[in-house]
C-alpha cells in the first residue's frame, strides 16, 4: 500500500500536526502573498502551498486509515474538546480534505496563464492569490473542524474570499459584479441561517462541540428549539450547497468569474457545503429522529429529484457553455442529495462518490473551457464550432469529462450513477432510478450539443487552424480527464473513500 510508505517517510512534525497544518499553512502564507509585489512569485508560492496541503491531506488520510478508532482529534491550544475547539478528522473529513487540496493544487498550477490573461491589473495578483489561499484555508477548515461555531467562522472566511474572487471577473465581463453581489447576499443569508440554527442548538444543549451536541440531542428530540435549529441549519447549508431551489446565485457566479475561480469553486465550494450538510444530518442529528426522517422523504429527496430533472432541462436550453455546465452542477447536486436522502450507508456512499467524481468532471470541463476562453475568446456554443479540429487536445479532454458527466460506461460518472442506482433499488425506489436515467438522457442532450458543435461543425474562422491551450493548462486538464477514465475502470480507491466516509458519517461498522 502506497499510503503506508507515505506515512513511514513523513517527518515527525507532519505526523503530529497534519490535521491543523493543512489549514494553518495556507492561512500563514496568504498574508505573505498579499504583500508580495510580484504576481509570478505569488503564483509560485501558492502552487507550493497547495502542494504542501495536498501532501498533508494524504498524510492525514493515512493517519485516519491506520488509526484504531478511525478518528484524529487535535485540540487547539491544548484546551480539551467540549470546551476548546477540536479539529476532528475521520474518514469523511479525510476524503473531503483530499479532494479540496488535490483540486486546489491542480487548479493553482493551471491558474497562471488564465489569470495573467484575464486580470489586467497586475499589481492586484498578489491579493488575488491571497484570496485563493484564504478561500482554500476556509474550505479546509470547514472540512476539519469538530466545532459547530468554528465551522461558521471558516465558512465565512472561505465565502468572503470567494466573493472577492468572483468580483475579479469584472475585468473581463462587467456582469461579474452583480453576480458577486448576488452571491454575497445569498451566501450571507445562508451563513446567517446556519448561525441562527446553531444558536437554537446551543440554547437547547449548551454546547458547541459537534460530538457533544450529538451526545445530548437524543434526550431533546421533542424540543421545539432543536427542531427549529435543524430547519435553519438545513436551509443555511442548503443555500451554500446550491440545493434546488436555493441555487439562483450559482449560474451567474460560475459564468462570470475568472475561469480559474470557476474551476476551483465548481469542484470544491458546493462540495464542502454538502459535506457539512451530511455531517449535520448524520453525525450531529441522527436519521432516527422523526423530524429528520420527515425532512428526508418530504424535502431532501423531492428537492434532489427536482434539481436533477428541472436543472438538466434548463441546461439544455442555455447558449453559453459555462451556463450549461453551471445548471448541470445544480442537477448533479440533486443526485448527491438523492443519495444522501436515502439515509442508508450505500445511499450516502453513492452521494459521496458522486461528489468526488463530479469534482473531477467539472474541474476538467471548466479547465478546458478556460483554455478555450484564453485562445478563442468565446464561450457560447456557437463559438465552440469546429474546436475539435483547431484545439484537439483541449477538446478531447473536454469530451472525456463530458462523457463522464453523462455517465457513459468506463468513466467515473458511470460508477457513481451505478452505485446510486443500486442504493435506490435496495430501498425499492425504482421510480427514482427511472428519473436518474431520464436526467442522464437530458445530460446526453446538453453535453451532446457542445460536442456536436465542437467535433462535427466547421470552424467559424477557418484561418485559425491550430490553436491549443498552453501546456500549463493542458497538463492539469489531462490529469483530471485521465482520472475520470481511471476511476471509471479501477474505481476501488474513490469507492473505498466514499464507503468509509459514509460509515464514518453514519457511525456504523464497516460494510465493505
Amino acid at each position, binding site marked *: 500500500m502506497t499510503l503506508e510508505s507515505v506515512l513511514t517517510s513523513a517527518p515527525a*512534525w507532519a505526523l503530529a*500536526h497534519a490535521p*491543523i497544518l493543512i489549514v*494553518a499553512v495556507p*492561512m*500563514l502564507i*496568504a*498574508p*505573505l502573498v*498579499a*504583500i508580495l509585489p510580484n504576481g509570478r512569485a505569488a503564483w509560485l508560492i501558492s502552487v507550493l502551498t497547495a502542494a504542501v496541503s495536498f501532501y498533508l491531506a494524504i498524510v492525514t488520510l493515512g493517519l485516519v486509515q491506520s488509526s484504531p478508532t478511525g478518528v484524529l482529534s*487535535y*485540540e*487547539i*491550544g*491544548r484546551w480539551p474538546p467540549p470546551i476548546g475547539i477540536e479539529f476532528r478528522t475521520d474518514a469523511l473529513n479525510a476524503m473531503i480534505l483530499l479532494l479540496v487540496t488535490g483540486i486546489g493544487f491542480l487548479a493553482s498550477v493551471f491558474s497562471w496563464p488564465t489569470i495573467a490573461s484575464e486580470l489586467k491589473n497586475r499589481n492586484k495578483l498578489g*491579493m488575488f492569490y*491571497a484570496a485563493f489561499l484564504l478561500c482554500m484555508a476556509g474550505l479546509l477548515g470547514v472540512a476539519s473542524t469538530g466545532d459547530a461555531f468554528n465551522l461558521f467562522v471558516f465558512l465565512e472566511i472561505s465565502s468572503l474570499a470567494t466573493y472577492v474572487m468572483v468580483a475579479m471577473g469584472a475585468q473581463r465581463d462587467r456582469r461579474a459584479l452583480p453576480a458577486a453581489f448576488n452571491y454575497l447576499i445569498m451566501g450571507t443569508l445562508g451563513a446567517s441561517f446556519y448561525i441562527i440554527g446553531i444558536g437554537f442548538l446551543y440554547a437547547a444543549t449548551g454546547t458547541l462541540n459537534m460530538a457533544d451536541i450529538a451526545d445530548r440531542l437524543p434526550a431533546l428530540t421533542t424540543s421545539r428549539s432543536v427542531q427549529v435549529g435543524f430547519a435553519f441549519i438545513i436551509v443555511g447549508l442548503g443555500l451554500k450547497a446550491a440545493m434546488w431551489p436555493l441555487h439562483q446565485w450559482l449560474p451567474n457566479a460560475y459564468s462570470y468569474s475568472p475561469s480559474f475561480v470557476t474551476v476551483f469553486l465548481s469542484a470544491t465550494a458546493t462540495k464542502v457545503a454538502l459535506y457539512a450538510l451530511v455531517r449535520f444530518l448524520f453525525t450531529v442529528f441522527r436519521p432516527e429522529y422523526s423530524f429528520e426522517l420527515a425532512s428526508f422523504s418530504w424535502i431532501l429527496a423531492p428537492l434532489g429529484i427536482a434539481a436533477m430533472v428541472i436543472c438538466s432541462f434548463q441546461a439544455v436550453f442555455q447558449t453559453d457553455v459555462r451556463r450549461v455546465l453551471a445548471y448541470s452542477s445544480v442537477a448533479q447536486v440533486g443526485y448527491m442529495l438523492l443519495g444522501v436522502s436515502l439515509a442508508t450507508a450505500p445511499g450516502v456512499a453513492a452521494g459521496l462518490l458522486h461528489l468526488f467524481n463530479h469534482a473531477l468532471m467539472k474541474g476538467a470541463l471548466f479547465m478546458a473551457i478556460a483554455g478555450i476562453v484564453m485562445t478563442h475568446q468565446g464561450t457560447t456554443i456557437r463559438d465552440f464550432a469546429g474546436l475539435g479540429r483547431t484545439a484537439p487536445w483541449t477538446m478531447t479532454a473536454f469530451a472525456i469529462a463530458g462523457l463522464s458527466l453523462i455517465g457513459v460506461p468506463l468513466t467515473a460518472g458511470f460508477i457513481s450513477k451505478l452505485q446510486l442506482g443500486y442504493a435506490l433499488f435496495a430501498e425499492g425506489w425504482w421510480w427514482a432510478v427511472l428519473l436518474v436515467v431520464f436526467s442522464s438522457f437530458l445530460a446526453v442532450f446538453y453535453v451532446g450539443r457542445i460536442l456536436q458543435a465542437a467535433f462535427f461543425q466547421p470552424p467559424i474562422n477557418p484561418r485559425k487552424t491550430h490553436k491549443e491551450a498552453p501546456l500549463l493548462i493542458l497538463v492539469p486538464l489531462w490529469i483530471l480527464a485521465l482520472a475520470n477514465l481511471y476511476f471509471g475502470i479501477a474505481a476501488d480507491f474513490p469507492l473505498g473513500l466514499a464507503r468509509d466516509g459514509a460509515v464514518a458519517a453514519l457511525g456504523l461498522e464497516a460494510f465493505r
Partner: protein
Amino acid sequence: MKSDHHVILRVIGKCFIPLIVIYGFYVQFHGEVGPGGAFQAGVVLAVAIILHSLTFGLATTMRAVPPVFARTLAAVGVLIYVGVGFWSMMQGGLFLEYQALFGEPPGGHDGQHAGIIIVELGVLFAVTGAMITIFYALAGRVAEIRDEDW
C-alpha cells in the same frame, strides 16, 4: 487658511484624534482583565483615522496613512496571529498552545501571558488595517458613470 470655514471642526477633530487613539490602546490593553479587546480596539483606532479623513479630506489622510500601509498592516496582523500558532508548534506544543511558547514547566504562566498579548496585537493590526482599507475602498470609489449620463 484664514478663510477656512471648517476651522472649528478641524481644531476639535485634532483634539479628539489623540484621545480616540489613547482610548483605543486602553481598550486593547484592558482587554486582558475586563470587557473589550483587540477587535474593538482596532475599530476605535480606525475610527481615529476615519475622523481625520472626514475633517481634513481623504487625500491628506491617504498621505498620512497610505493605503498600502493599511493593507500591509492587516496582512501583518494575520501573520502575527498564525505565526504565534507556528511558534508554539515549533516549541513542541500544539497549535496556539501559549503554555508551550517559552517551554516553561507547568506552573509558569509567562507563556499564557505573552501569547495572548501577542495574538491580541495581531488582531489589533488586522482589524485596524482592514477597517481603514474598507473605508478607503468605499470613500475612494470613483463613479464610473457620471450622474448626468444616466
